[in-house]
């Protein structure tokens, strides 16, 4: 047994209200849901928390619905549920494409959209999609709710504006105008952590987001601005170099990522022409 479960404590709220009250009383509780990140961390001893709050049973946080032009996805919605959703596939096909490439079926059946956001990895596969779509993260605490634009949600490496007494309850995706594009580059198609990924929308304006090229997901606004204004691909590539700061790690070198980021930009532009 890799970790001693007996040393861990678990709170099991029966409702969101109860969960928020527990967190207000004890913000040190670490939220867990599908456990695809938490249990890997426990296995390797990289999760320091010992006291958890189990959100998996809170069905009110599941489901995908349209609120007029806004698509609202509950935080506990799994990747498998997103992949099966006709509504999501009509409105944000790039989110379906990203979800399909996360882990394998076993991970897609357990991993949640809210968990991908909360885990705050720079390699989180849905995060460039949410950035490119201009999503809002809905947070709730015992005292109220707020919606944070995706681009101001993260404040640094694995850091966000979420307070310890707040939970991510939903993601709101506005209407996305234009052609959507997604590509993940990894060592194999399934079960691979991204070396780099890019989500983009080509409409009246262009939106481009990259993952795994900086401490947080990057919304490449200057690069997109060049293309929106009718600038050349060469100018866009130059802008891109100043917007990303990839590092060398176990999966890739920074230079490889720079090159591939530029290649993806070109591929996106040609394929959505």
């Amino acid at each position, binding site marked *: 047994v890799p970790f001693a479960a007996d040393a861990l404590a678990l709170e099991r709220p029966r409702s969101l209200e109860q969960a928020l009250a527990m967190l207000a009383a004890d913000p040190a509780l670490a939220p867990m849901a599908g456990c695809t990140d938490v249990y890997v961390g426990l296995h*390797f001893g990289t999760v320091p928390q010992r006291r958890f709050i189990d959100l998996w049973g809170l069905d009110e946080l599941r489901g995908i619905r349209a609120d007029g032009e806004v698509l609202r996805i509950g935080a506990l919605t799994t990747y498998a549920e997103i992949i099966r959703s006709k509504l999501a596939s009509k409105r944000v096909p790039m989110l379906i494409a990203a979800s399909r490439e996360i882990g394998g079926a076993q991970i897609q*059946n357990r991993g949640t959209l809210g968990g991908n956001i909360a885990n705050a990895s720079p390699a989180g596969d849905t995060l460039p999609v949410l950035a490119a779509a201009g999503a809002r993260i809905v947070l709730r605490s015992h005292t109220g709710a707020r919606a944070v634009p995706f681009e101001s949600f993260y404040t640094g490496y694995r850091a966000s504006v979420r307070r310890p007494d707040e939970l991510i309850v939903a993601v709101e995706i506005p209407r996305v105008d234009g052609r959507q594009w997604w590509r993940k580059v990894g060592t194999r198609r399934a079960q691979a952590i991204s070396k780099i990924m890019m989500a983009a929308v080509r409409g009246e304006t262009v939106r481009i987001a990259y993952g795994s090229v900086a401490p947080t997901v990057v919304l490449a606004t200057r690069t997109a601005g060049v293309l929106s204004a009718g600038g050349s691909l060469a100018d866009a590539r130059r802008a891109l170099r100043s917007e990303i700061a990839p590092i060398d790690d176990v999966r890739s070198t920074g230079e490889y990522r720079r090159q591939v980021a530029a290649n993806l930009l070109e591929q996106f532009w040609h394929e959505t022409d």
Partner: protein
Amino acid sequence: MKLNVNGKTRTVKAHPMKRLLDVLREDCGLTGTKEGCGEGECGACTVLIDGVPVDSCIVPAVHAEGCKVITIEGATATRTGRALQNAFVTHGGAQCGICTPGMILAAAPLPPGASLDQIKTALAGNLCRCTGYPAIFRSVRSALKGKAGRAVRR
């Protein structure tokens, strides 16, 4: 905790955060479920919870409470499971055997006559280090075609 495993209700005295994998192996004595990587990468520990494949090494046991868990011991008691098991034998889909229970359980929810693409997608989360995948895909394909157990002459 009350767990329904392979159609039988069991009461186990275990911490709610104990890995489902360990509860199955240690508390239920069902050692057919294997541990490979322990981090949700290899799929060796795949079981079905309410018919859905999950990696039991990253599922807290308490998440299986009130659900129907099927392990390899239960799967091979069903018709599809037996067909898969026989096909793995016939087509050389198993060598060391560590990945086999997970492969069979990941394939179990596939519809009859599933395409090679569907099979590859269903097994994308299961790693094999011995046979390579073609023999496994052949086994699953043949089981889902209902040809399981028929000897293949080469």
